[in-house]
């Protein structure tokens, strides 16, 4: 009898030992690659300077401060041959004179640096507007999860790609939402933007940006989201940029942009 008591105690002790925290921080230092050039260029449908940023990558163990790249020759050309040269107004930040990007116009970005030229082309799609914004509230036991829902009417006569960018009280949400209309062509779409980067609380001011992006830029962002884990992700790789060479990271995107705000009730 006594023996059995000890046995049960032993089993209970061993069992509780086995249920311990299973996530921990470890020390891994993969080989550091040589710094890579990163070009991020945008043309949007709002009057203002259009901006191209050039930086370099750093090693994984470094601090996340990214050296700007100065001295590049940066040019934007539209499909009618109008060329604008961008001026470096801050280190690594090149901006154009003020102009308005237009839908259905192809823009070409040319960056020349150290004798090499990087070229990318992007066509600004037609603008699709946000119809309305709502909040999805889900309760699991005592915890509540709030997520933004965007409603919009997808045009049925074309393939559309969208990207949503959220920021909460001025802080950018890290999750990227790239969507297309493969399953929703021509529908009135209810798009819930699930994210767990910043938990939404009452009183938070959320800014929602809806971008209409072209196919190349969508592929870029879609692959990008696949790298961030999830059950259908593949072997990690750098997203396919839309430049003429894979010797550069980043993208060039001509897209429409619309912002809406809500305060979380």
């Amino acid at each position, binding site marked *: 009898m006594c023996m059995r008591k000890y046995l049960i105690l032993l*089993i209970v002790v*061993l*069992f509780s*030992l*086995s*249920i*311990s925290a*299973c*996530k*921990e*921080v*470890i*020390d*891994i230092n*993969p*080989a*550091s*690659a040589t*710094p*890579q050039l*990163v070009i*991020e260029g945008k043309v949007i449908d709002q009057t203002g300077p259009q901006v191209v940023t050039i*930086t*370099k*990558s*750093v*090693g*994984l*163990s*470094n*601090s*996340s*401060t*990214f050296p700007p790249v100065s001295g590049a020759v940066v040019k934007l050309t539209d499909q009618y041959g109008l060329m604008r040269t961008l001026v470096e107004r801050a280190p690594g930040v090149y901006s154009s004179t003020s102009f308005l990007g237009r839908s259905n116009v192809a823009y070409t970005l040319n960056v020349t640096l150290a004798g090499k030229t990087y070229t990318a082309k992007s066509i600004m799609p037609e603008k699709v507007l946000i119809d309305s914004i709502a909040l999805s509230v889900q309760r699991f036991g005592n915890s509540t999860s709030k997520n933004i829902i965007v409603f919009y009417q997808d045009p049925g006569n074309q393939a559309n790609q969208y990207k949503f*960018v959220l920021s909460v009280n001025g802080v*950018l949400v*890290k999750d*990227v939402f790239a969507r297309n209309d*493969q*399953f929703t062509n021509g529908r009135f779409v209810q798009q819930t933007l699930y994210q767990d980067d910043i938990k939404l609380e009452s009183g938070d001011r959320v800014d929602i940006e809806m971008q209409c992006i072209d196919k190349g830029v969508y*592929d870029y962002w879609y*692959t*990008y989201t*696949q*790298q*961030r*884990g*999830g*059950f*259908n*992700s*593949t*072997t*990690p*790789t*750098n*997203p*396919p940029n839309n430049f003429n060479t894979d010797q550069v*990271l*980043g993208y060039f995107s001509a897209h429409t942009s619309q912002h809406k705000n809500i305060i979380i009730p």
Partner: protein
Amino acid sequence: MGPGNFNTYNSNNVLTGSRTYQSGDVVTRYLNPEPRFSASYMFNDQNSVKASYNRNTQNIHLISNSTAASPTDLYVMSSNNIKPGISDQVALGFFKNSANNQYEFSSEIYYKKLQNQIDYKNGAQLLANQDVESQLIYGDGRAYGVELFFKKRYGKLNGWVGYTLSKTENRFNQVNNGQYFAAKHDRTHDVSVVGIYKLGSRWTISGTFVYGTGNAVTYPQGKYILGGVTTLYYGNRNADRMPAYSRLDLGATLEGKPHKRFHSSWTFGLYNALNRKNPYTINFEDDPNDKTRTRAAKTSLFGRIPSVTYNFSF
């Protein structure tokens, strides 16, 4: 075999044709002989050598994802795009038994050539993709190594020790500039030790220790800023390693008192007795304490797990 719509892709994953087949129509046919050859030579009662050649074909393919984040594996059948995998293996082994067959020793070397290997292309899109064949690339592979094995077959203490030194590599034109790279399951060192000890007439204790080089995975090799978010930069596919895997399992069996009509036994087990946290996945994330730093966090599944089994036979 139909019915269905079959798409054909060229080596750049561009759709080159599509045809609808009726029920009973044959889309493609593969006929592969699988020749085998083996020979052995006995020097004497105790020593022998064996040599063999095998060709095997396989029509079910495992496409594996070597992300450190979440492994999703998929089985696919051979099709008009996916050719049957073919392996040619040659092996040469030396076998020795001694002390009345109480000890057994073997060493073997092998070389295997693999054809029609498949993998995902870089940046494959899998979610809601009904045609995974458009996301595949085709290449070849090779595997070679040495296996050493020692076994004590009977006695108060028995068990075995095995060690394998090997290399398994794949080659795809579209990945890592067409160079050979480590397959996910490439395991440079693989050790297993098993010991069973009879402790008196009723108790038997046993221990198993396994050790293996970690899976080949793709880790980030740098980071950059994109849209205000720190983004990881990836280098060559499968260029890095998960931490080595090791585990010690212990067991003890208590035989019931001999009985005429039935036989019973208790088995007590302890899985992962050293409670080693073998990683299941590794994620790279911003350090919450210092956002300018990146840290690696591993998730492990099983710590120490005890078990009790009661066997009863009649």
